[in-house]
């Protein structure tokens, strides 16, 4: 192809240097600390799991575009993000052959069949996690202990906490739990990438500084969970366990902020995040599952288009005319 001599196009003639790929690579970079933490806690198997997950997501993305005879989109790196997030939602000991099944659900069914990037109505990684959880309940809840920590081997702190709260809250003794510092560093049972709160917060901070996300959704989500937990458990320490435990930070920072499945409007983001927080607490405290982040986000994903329509910004100058009329 010959280079055009003089380019004629309509304004604007300058564009921001940010690209879709740049945004996705920023998210990958933000996920790296948590990945490193999971390798530290769960060993090389965590890395292997992430590798298989990313690899199968990228392969499914490329394949589905070829089969659907659509322009190849694997270069936008969004499949890498989905792969990492899917891996982060899996228990470290999950049999490897189950991972591509999750990738198939995430990339082919949730994302590509609905039109590819930006068109999916639900978060691919979360949907895949839920499908795997319902298909292989035992494997998906077989938590292995972090290396070198003789903490509770098979149950996540949140599960223990739930059982304690359900029976007799006064029975709570901190000895049953990893310390708050251990919770912050991720030395506890749980999914691959959800345990190390410090790494997740670091990633979130990076995303905010790089302006990939606004802090609105994470802050509202975590804030609502904090408030509800404080009033339900009546103890600031237990509240902290609720915040650091389970998949809350991973969900609030990386999953609920997914562009495609959260509202684009400012107030829409607030309502969406508050809804996620309330649903998470309802499931955690009154449901029969220890964890509610995935289901909460999935349910709010479905409401997202309606929230967005209800919170459409008023055009500048529109209010005034209404006031006069």
């Amino acid at each position, binding site marked *: 192809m010959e280079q055009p001599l003089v380019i*004629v196009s309509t304004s604007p*003639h*300058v564009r921001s240097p940010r*690209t879709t790929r740049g945004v996705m690579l920023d998210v990958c970079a933000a996920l790296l600390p948590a990945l490193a933490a999971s390798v530290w806690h769960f060993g090389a198997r965590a890395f292997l799991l992430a590798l298989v997950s990313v690899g199968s997501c990228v392969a499914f993305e490329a394949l589905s575009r070829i089969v659907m005879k659509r322009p190849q*989109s694997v270069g936008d790196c969004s499949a890498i993000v989905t792969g990492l997030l899917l891996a982060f939602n899996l228990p470290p000991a999950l049999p490897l052959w189950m991972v591509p099944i999750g990738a198939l659900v995430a990339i082919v069914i949730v994302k590509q069949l609905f039109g590819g990037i930006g068109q999916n109505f639900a978060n691919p990684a979360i949907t895949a996690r839920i499908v795997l959880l319902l298909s292989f309940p035992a494997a998906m809840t077989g938590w292995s202990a972090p290396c070198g920590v003789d903490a509770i081997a098979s149950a996540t702190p949140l599960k223990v906490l739930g059982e304690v709260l359900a029976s007799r809250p006064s029975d709570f003794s901190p000895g049953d739990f990893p310390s708050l510092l251990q919770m912050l560093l991720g030395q506890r049972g749980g999914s691959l990438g959800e345990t190390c709160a410090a790494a997740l917060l670091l990633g979130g901070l990076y995303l905010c500084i790089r302006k990939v996300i606004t802090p609105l959704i994470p802050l509202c989500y975590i804030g609502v969970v904090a408030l509800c937990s404080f009033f339900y458990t009546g103890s600031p320490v237990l509240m902290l366990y609720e915040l650091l435990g389970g998949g809350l930070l991973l969900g609030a920072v990386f999953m609920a902020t997914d562009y495609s499945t959260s509202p684009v409007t*400012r107030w829409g983001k607030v309502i969406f995040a508050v809804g996620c927080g309330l649903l998470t607490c309802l499931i955690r405290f009154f449901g029969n599952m220890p964890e509610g982040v995935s289901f909460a986000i999935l349910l709010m994903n479905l409401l997202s288009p309606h929230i967005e329509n209800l919170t459409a*910004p008023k*055009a500048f*100058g529109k209010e*005034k005319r209404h006031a006069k009329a």
Partner: protein
Amino acid sequence: MSRGIKIKHHKNTHALQAVRIGHCGMVTLLMRQGIGAPCVPCVTPGERVLAGQLVGEAQAPLAAPVHASVSGTVKKIDTVRLPTGEDVQAVVVESDGQMEFYPFQAPAVHSREAFLAAVRDSGLVGLGGAGFPTHAKLRSAAGEADILLVNASECEPYITTDHREALDRSADIIAGIQHICRWLQIREAVIGIEDNKSDAISLLKGLCWQNNTPELRLRTGVLPSRYPQGAEKIFIHTLTKRVVPLGKLPSAVGALVMNVASVSFLGRYFRTGRPLISRTVTVDGGAVPHPMNVRVPIGISVGELLKDKRIGFHLEHASDSAPLATKIIMGGPMMGVAGPDYSAVISKCNNSVILFNSSEARLKPESACIRCGRCVAVCPMRLQPLKLEKAWQARSAQDLRQLNAMGCMECGCCSYACPAGRELVQRIRLGKKFLRDQQTKGGA
């Protein structure tokens, strides 16, 4: 304004006083420059004209007359195609190099009518870019406006003509404000300027303070440097907190907004009587070796302008196979119009020529919308560009109307901010045209 975009300023020429262009062989005087009805040529080929002599009569109310910008001979009356694709009649004058002026004198003004007539005869249109005939704007503001807002924000990258106007002709600006406010009975005037022009701010602040009287309160309003700060409705809102209703003009909230160069021109015009025949233009962009501000006769072509040796742009080496610049933009990079070659002419409302090199001109490839919401976050009119784009693609007049497509001022922030390189404002523009066409069809 919390919305809009932060954009690299590229104000490379802010320290360079405008220099007069060396020579000019030919000028093409367009009969319509900016908004309004075209003028009617009142000279014939072969006739000798003097600089400042009337060559195009404004017969419609919404038009400003056109004057010869050089002395010389009328070569022909031609039809010229503008970079926007429109065809406009033009009087082509070959310069004799003498620059002999038509005898003019300062207009004597004793009434508002005489003032408005004098403004009309000056040929002035808004020099900031849109080119609305100034006398028509002043007439509609008379009795309606209680505040004059002088726009020196200059939020487009590269352009520094307003900045230079404020620095080099500040006395004319104050004189212009005094004339306008006197005849329109306006008692308050604010010069709005972005905070990246600190030298001009301190100069104007001093002058405003000196000339502040109980009859005319004068002040300088400092605005954050954020594009599109200079857009009329945003400008009014930042300075006065008044919100112009959607689809209405600034006069609806009692504001009269004028570009600083227009005000300054009026200050000079009422002193000398010399009509609008020249203007300052910023020449910049990656393909320009020595960016500068030049004072050029109206109607000079870009090619002629670039022959000035000081710019260092060796147009004589340009050929069809190596055009030197990859994009030729008339106006700023955010809202200017790109032309196919160097033949475009400088009109009254043209404040810059930006020449991009091949890397600056490279187009961002377009990919699928990722719904990141940046376009919504940056839209100064608080619209939802991603939904407007879809509404246009679906050709849904109902959706376009409901999403207030006509409220879009086409500032381009959405397209700028989009990581997927979506042509958002371009499609909204088409959507607006679609709505206008539907309306005329419905009316007929």
